[in-house]
């Protein structure tokens, strides 16, 4: 981090929004953005919050012996939970889901049993509206530091000024390609769906949920990622159904198939793209230049959490930069917290899969809340799967 960034004073929310809009329009460099928004301020911030890494904050209250967390495949360092258990005596059961839609369905169908879960930005407002998550008591999470967070990624956790969710990390949805099997260079979702029917026939995977599978098909056709217009969705359905016979699988857990080379190409989240590329350098991660998704995953606590105390304790533990940095190195998803950036080795911050250039981010969009509940998209996805 350059010295120049340290001299930047913290900026207000409206300034941040402006900066963010400028970044989205591409008129500002990512380095400038990081500098201005405070993401580059790591060392200074760390100096300002000396107690942030103190792990003894959860002595108060009985935490019980067990809790469960609902999260995504390959998303945590298993050691995190072992260390948490060693520190608090609480064993953590990890439930893995394939989509936000599935998480929501599980909560809607009655007791989920989770004390902490990891919903994505576009679902928070629905959970709040349905009364399924509770406002977070930030006094229970002293390790969280609003000042070192990038509001671009924390905004969607707040509704009417109340904090319902804290950011875990952000990321993108692109696609991974095994370049030893597929030689044609690809740069867009248009390419993805074309190659899936030709060179990667029988070897391509798409996600098992509506947002990115339908969204990417829309993007490939030149429409908006979040569209709920009936005519555009009809075109996307046509494309998806045309591609379906050529697919290897419809599954959000694609790492095993990519690693065994059963699959050669897949829709892919940043963290999985980074993990695959780290272990098998021939697997490249590509962001569509025609569009795609940028997202933030949050931590939230369900209203009916059986062990709220442990849920808060684990959340606080994960917000500790010393733990968050280990999670980051293990799962490869970019952080929203400048304190964590400061602790990262250069090969992570310099990894273009994890921290892409702003030009690559410009075409991407956050998922819109309406896609989660739109019956048209839900039914399209279900029809596509059963076609």
């Amino acid at each position, binding site marked *: 981090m350059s010295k120049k960034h340290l001299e930047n004073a913290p900026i207000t929310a409206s300034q941040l929004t402006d900066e963010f809009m400028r970044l989205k329009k591409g008129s500002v460099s990512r380095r400038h953005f990081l500098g201005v928004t405070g993401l580059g301020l790591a060392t200074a911030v760390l100096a300002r919050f000396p107690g942030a890494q103190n792990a003894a904050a959860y002595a108060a209250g009985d935490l019980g012996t067990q809790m469960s967390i609902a999260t995504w495949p390959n998303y945590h360092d298993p050691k995190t939970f072992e260390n948490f258990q060693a520190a608090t005596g609480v064993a953590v059961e990890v439930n893995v889901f394939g*989509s936000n*839609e*599935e998480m*929501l*369905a*599980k909560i*809607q*169908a009655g007791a989920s049993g989770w004390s902490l879960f990891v919903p994505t930005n576009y679902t928070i407002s*629905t959970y709040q*509206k*349905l009364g399924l998550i509770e406002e977070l008591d930030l006094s229970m999470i002293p390790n969280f530091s609003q000042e070192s967070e990038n509001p671009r990624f924390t905004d969607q956790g707040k509704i009417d000024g109340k904090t319902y969710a804290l950011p875990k990390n952000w990321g993108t949805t692109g696609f991974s390609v095994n370049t030893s099997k597929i030689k044609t260079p690809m740069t867009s979702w248009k390419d993805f769906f074309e190659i899936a029917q030709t060179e990667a026939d*029988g*070897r391509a995977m798409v996600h*098992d*949920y*509506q947002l990115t599978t339908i969204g990417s098909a829309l993007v490939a056709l030149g429409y908006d990622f979040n569209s709920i217009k009936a005519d555009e969705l009809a075109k996307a359905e046509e494309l998806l159904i045309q591609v*379906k016979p050529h*697919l*290897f*699988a*419809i*599954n959000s857990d694609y790492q095993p*198939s990519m690693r*065994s*080379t*059963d699959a050669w190409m897949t829709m892919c989240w940043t963290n999985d793209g980074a993990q695959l590329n780290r272990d098998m350098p021939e697997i490249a991660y590509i962001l569509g230049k025609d569009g795609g998704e940028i997202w933030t995953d949050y931590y939230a606590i369900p209203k009916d959490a059986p062990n709220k105390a442990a849920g808060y304790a684990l959340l606080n533990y994960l917000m500790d930069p010393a733990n968050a940095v280990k999670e980051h190195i293990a799962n490869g998803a970019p952080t929203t917290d400048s304190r964590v950036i400061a602790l990262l080795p250069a090969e992570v911050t310099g990894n273009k899969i994890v921290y892409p250039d702003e030009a690559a981010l410009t075409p991407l969009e956050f998922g819109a809340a309406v896609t989660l*509940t739109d*019956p048209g998209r*839900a*039914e399209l*996805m*279900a*029809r596509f*799967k*059963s*076609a």
Partner: protein
Amino acid sequence: MALTQATRKKLVTLALVGPAGLWLGLFLVLPFIAMVVFSFGRRAPEGGYQAAFTFEQFANLGSRAAAFANTLMLAPVGALACLLIAYPVAYYLAVKAAPRHRLLLVSLVVVPFWTSLLVRTYAWMYLLGARGIPHLLELIGIENVRLINTPMAVLLGIVYGYLPLMIMPIYVSLEKLDRRLLEASADLGAKPVSTFFGITLPLSLPGVMTGLALVTILLLGEYLIPQLLGGGKVFFIGNALVDLFLQSRNWPFGSAIAVTLVVVVVIVLTIAMRIAWRFAGTRQVDLV
């Protein structure tokens, strides 16, 4: 307490069948009624159920035609494939195997059925994946074979999972077969082939029909095998149902499909019974 003999007898009967009746009422009849009611409802804006009286769910059944077609094809085909493999095995066990080995051999058929289908199917995920059989094929020069996530993989999983369930009823019907009939047939100069088609096969038909009906019916509601070996591409009604409840959260439509599935099962069962009566000439087709 002056209870008459008849009242006493009635009370005992009630005590005997009452709990079962209550259980069936609460957890079979009531849920089924709830499901039928739901199937006329509407999807709530955020998913789930909203009370209504509409036929739109049933009108939309056509959008799952592929899943119904898949199931209605792969279930009987799977059952027939099971039969083709099961019959010789059952015949061997009942007729050819040495009696002192028979118990062990029959037990060995049953054992896989008593172990987790989930774990056994997982083993097939490995065997059919690139590190399994395709890897062995690569060693002998056949490259880039894809087995997993194909209808063939699902069919194989089906045969594997349900084979014991097909072997057992056929074995039982063949075991009951009076061996003296076979000997008489041979004594009268019949060739083994004509003995088989004239006596053995017809007499084992009740077992065959039981096996076919049992496996077909179970397959109509199958979820796990297509899910694990079909990669979300080979879709059964069971998968469409799970999807509607656990992804798109369309409970009314899911209920409508579930009701339809039950109707399909009843139709298939009725047809199976009719065929059984005609060919086996018996009304005794045990399903258990």
